[in-house]
């Protein structure tokens, strides 16, 4: 994964490694994350709301004694919020935080598809969308028979896009 972190910010280069990816859907779009990052997939359970958090942080759950945060990827990607269906699940991923420590986080997704073996030849570089779309956390696009899957660098997404903004927001928040 070290190579991906240095090059993924330059569009036009393929930074995703070939290998197994877990694919899931958000609305009509399809995404993939490296299987190695995925700890387990659970059914939605009662989420405890945490106050003063951005909307995409749904709250925390009890995962067999561990308290882990839950992020709604739909809200994160600014897609419309969806009603919970029987296909909705929480993908628990293990990420490496900026501080070097490991942490578990749950991602709410519309549905899990499959574990796909993606060959290097199937992966296209991320197109340059210009300023309208930040693609730093996108590893590349995989063309599979089911359509195009966006491969996510989950460490980068959750760190840079979620953990850091939360921290910044809280530190600048009024009241303290």
């Amino acid at each position, binding site marked *: 994964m070290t190579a991906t972190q240095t090059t993924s910010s330059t569009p036009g280069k393929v930074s995703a490694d070939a290998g197994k990816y877990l694919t899931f859907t958000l609305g009509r779009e399809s995404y993939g994350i490296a299987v190695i990052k995925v700890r387990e997939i659970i059914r939605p359970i009662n989420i*405890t709301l945490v*106050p*003063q958090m951005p909307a995409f942080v749904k709250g*925390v*759950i*009890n995962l067999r*004694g561990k308290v882990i945060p839950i992020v709604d990827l739909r809200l994160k990607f600014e897609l419309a919020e969806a009603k919970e269906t029987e296909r909705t699940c929480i993908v628990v991923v293990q990420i490496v935080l900026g*501080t070097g420590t490991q942490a578990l986080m749950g991602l709410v997704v519309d549905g899990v598809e499959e574990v796909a073996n993606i060959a290097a030849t199937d992966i296209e570089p991320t197109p340059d969308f210009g300023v309208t779309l930040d693609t730093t956390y996108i590893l590349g696009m995989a063309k599979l028979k089911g359509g195009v899957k966006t491969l996510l660098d989950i460490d980068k997404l959750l760190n840079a896009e979620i953990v850091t903004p939360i921290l910044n927001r809280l530190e600048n928040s009024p009241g303290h």
Partner: protein
Amino acid sequence: MNPQIFGELKNLSEKIASELVFAEAGKDLGLLPVNSLLGQMEELLTTHTGPEPLMQAARLARGWVDGILETTGNFSVSSLKRLGEWAAWFQMAVQACAGENPPAPLPGEWAKANLEPDAPATMPAPQLQATEEPSLVLNIEGDGELLGEFINESQEHLQNIEQGVLVLEENPADAETLNSIFRAFHTFKGGSGFLNLGAIQTLAHELESLLDLARQHKLAITPEVINLILAGGDTLKQFTNEIGTQLSGKASPGPIVVPTLHLLGCIRDVLAGVSNEGHSATPPAAPIRPEANAVVASATMVPAIETSKPVPATTVDVKATGSGNLKAVGPANAIKVDTLKLDSLIDLVGELVIAQSLVVQNRDLNTVRSEQLTRDLAQLGHISKDLQHTAMSLRMVPIRGMFQKMHRLVRDLTAKVGKHVQLVTEGEDTELDRTIVEEISDPLVHMIRNSVDHGIEKPEVRQQRGKPEQGTVFLKAFHRGGNIVIEIRDDGNGLNRERILAKALEQGVVKPDESLSDAQIFNLIFAAGFSTAEKITDVSGRGVGLDVVRRNIDKLRGKIEIQSTPGEGSTFRIYLPLTLAIIDGLLVGIGEHRYIIPTLSVCESFQPRVEMISTVHGRGEMINVRGRLIPLLRLYSHLGIKPANTEPSQSIVVVVEAGKDVRCLLVDQLLGKQEVVIKSLGEAFRGNRCLAGAAILGDGRVGLILDPQALVHLEIAPLEAAA
């Protein structure tokens, strides 16, 4: 000479050093290997024409070894010591030569001395050598793990040494204690030799010899000897601390230099004194020369700083003990377990208890009419409760170790401030969470220092006041109402209410028209930068410290109470939770959500009547609680949730207190009191200051724990926004 040869030379000298570690006086074990290693060394040096100092040193050693082989054929105490020193010197010298620096000069006494079989009377006259302090270079890459173990073990040994010495002060002839200190130094020597830590090994060796003489009743344990042992322990501690910081990567690897020569000289003086006394079994007086005493005393007080590297001073000593490995002495059958494993075990047991209660409450199961099932479920309940109890107790350690450290502290302090103070401890067997014991150590050191420095009066003042000349500080630990209380009481001066108040006014901490209770005034001493000491002493009085004490205790979710009677003394009581893992919480409901408020900060709760509520400028709301106006904090508006009720007279008010701030929290209902296991919310929510953590509630859902400390500092939202 090329670097490779130096490497080989170093290698050989290291091998010699490790052979010597296992050698014993009166035996020939290791003598032949040393002889052959020395031979290889000489060969290397002559064929490659090594530097003159090294050649000279090798020749010296050859002379000694030949001497042993020709006479008794066994090592003697003195020859072992000499060879050990030699090996350490040689390693240093090789290193210096490899770096093209001149090596330290050969100690002069070596050249004169031949090594005789054990005949202490002819041991060379000791003298303080002005040679360079030996330095240690760690091989972190290769020995990292071993070094880590060495440090871990050392901490225990150091503690044993320190505790032992304090016992010796009371009872100098205690054979068991002498043995245990001896063994501690011995193990130190072995370990350091194995890891090639020459300087530590040499020091440990000398100290071991000292204890050995005492063990054989050849040396009386005098205060000077005790000071030597303590100073030795402290120096070893400095070494291990330095190694520890380098191992953990907090300091860049480099040579470690801790001054030892001075101390070594003193120890050797004492040793020589004993040998000069001849073989009389029990010398009546301490065989130490006066000038040696003086030197020792200064060495214990101020570790001589002669190096470019910052040498940990006495304050570091305190820090080190704080992080030290606390373990009760005694033959406890114990194994060491990684705390992470322990925590995950406790987590899982907690989950098991929840799962068990879910099973017991299962509706389908409850329709089954079976006596057997009921019995089995009850049995399961018992077992899981016991299991939880045991799991919780795993983290508990007795407070004894820390109290013993305080004895040492008081002992050193009294010498420094010129007062007579005794420390009386009680309740050493009280157990509390290991983390708390570690965290409370620093605050306690501060408090004891304060008591000794400010509390207890000078002997002459005490006499005038008709008190015994010797002041007493009581240190007590006991259980009270689900908390651990640590009480520090002194029979000294007491706090000066007027002076504290005057100082607070001067610093603007309180306003002139504020009326404060005694307790509130005494609490002011915990404000940052607050000191009423007339003069700043070495020990305390700079006004830093007590605010740190307060912060540490807050962090542990404890509180502190002060009572004081002028002229009679003061009492500080620290209330601490039994364990950091569990808190006693008040479960409150706001709308559909449940929150936990730590019970320790809850004063009371009630349903306010309409006439109790008043507003300022139509915005700031206050509740009149028996004549005291307390700001009302509408929790739901801060937490961004929808309450069942926005009208205070329809809801419940919980009065919380943190420091000197009090707030009324508006909640919908009280759901009960519960002991909950605290879980960290993790990095993502680190910045959310309203929350102290999370806990798994009885139904398996997560409940959030509010942090009263942060709540009382929240801005009171204007009423319009809140309503």
